């Protein structure tokens, strides 16, 4: 993957793992790449990877077992909360943008419904 060079890379590494958890690509107790392997796979500074992994540990997202590797430690409960948080922030920016454009709640809901149906019919 390519990193967005305008945002701190360690945050993007954390997001990458969060997203993989949301989509089910990664599941609780899965083993993830070692820091060294991650750095080499994505050509990122090993210090940056170390920082991201440390932060993920502090968040309870992963745990590192000595001599065994790093594993997803997030529980189903945490995943739910993360999903809610992410949905909330998507909605926040949606609401903000729609307000700026001058739409009422009713109009915004209608448009959202329309867009939702279009998206589904495309699948």
């Amino acid at each position, binding site marked *: 993957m390519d990193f967005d*060079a*305008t*945002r*701190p890379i360690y945050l993007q590494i954390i997001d990458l793992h969060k997203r993989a958890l949301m989509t089910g690509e990664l599941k609780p107790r899965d083993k993830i790449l070692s820091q060294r392997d991650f750095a080499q796979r994505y*050509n990122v500074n090993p*210090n*940056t*990877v170390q920082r991201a992994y440390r932060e993920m540990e502090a968040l309870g997202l992963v745990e590192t077992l000595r001599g065994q590797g790093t594993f997803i430690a997030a529980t189903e409960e945490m995943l739910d909360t993360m999903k809610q948080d992410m949905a909330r922030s998507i909605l926040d920016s949606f609401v903000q943008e729609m307000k700026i454009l001058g739409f009422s709640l009713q109009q915004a809901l209608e448009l959202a419904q329309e867009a939702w149906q279009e998206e589904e019919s495309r699948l």
Partner: protein
Amino acid sequence: MIQFKQATKRYGPTLALDNITITLPENKIIGLFGPNGAGKSTLLKAAAGLVRLSSGNVTVAGKAPRQMRAHLAYLPEQNTLPFAWTIKRAAEFYRAFFADWDEDRYQKQLVMLNLREDMKFGHISKGQLAKARLLLTLARQAHCLLLDEPFSGIDIIARGEITRALVYDYSEGQQTMIISTHEIDEIENLVEHVVFIDSGRAAVFGDADELRCQEGKSIVTIMKEAFRHGSEQVEHV
């Protein structure tokens, strides 16, 4: 930590370093950027203890660079190895000369960089020569690596191989690596701290992530802008 205090270096009428005061943090990968003739090579040579400053001083971990030589691995921009030598012969030389030579590292990197020990410096391509010289520098377990234009004049494939070699060998949290280059793109994801120098002065410097957040731009863009502004504008984080 490498500290330059009011460092000035003159080569005859040319001012290579102009009263530069800057601190390069320890145990990080640092990008040293700037146009040709900005003073990048002189800065690295001063840190390696290879040039005497005209005034001011530079310290590495609080000591004079000359005293720190055993802990510094310096890769000069130009090749200094005899063209008649093979990689094997050069490795023997380095092995005998440097106490921190790491044979295991050397063997692994040799394979990673797609090199062979029987290759002669005079007979290989520019890219292979660059990789071979880097190999010898990286095979030392030096605490501080000073790499002057490791990507200069080589193709995109070899550049990628070099970046990979740098990542592969880096001991996180334990090694300082300073890379001077024009290929900012190549090491955008690698550098944690950046210094942009122009006309012997530090124009922009700071933590790469802080600069990204502050400007909402990539390091490449920030450096390009610094390049355009030249030395008129001085900013730091």
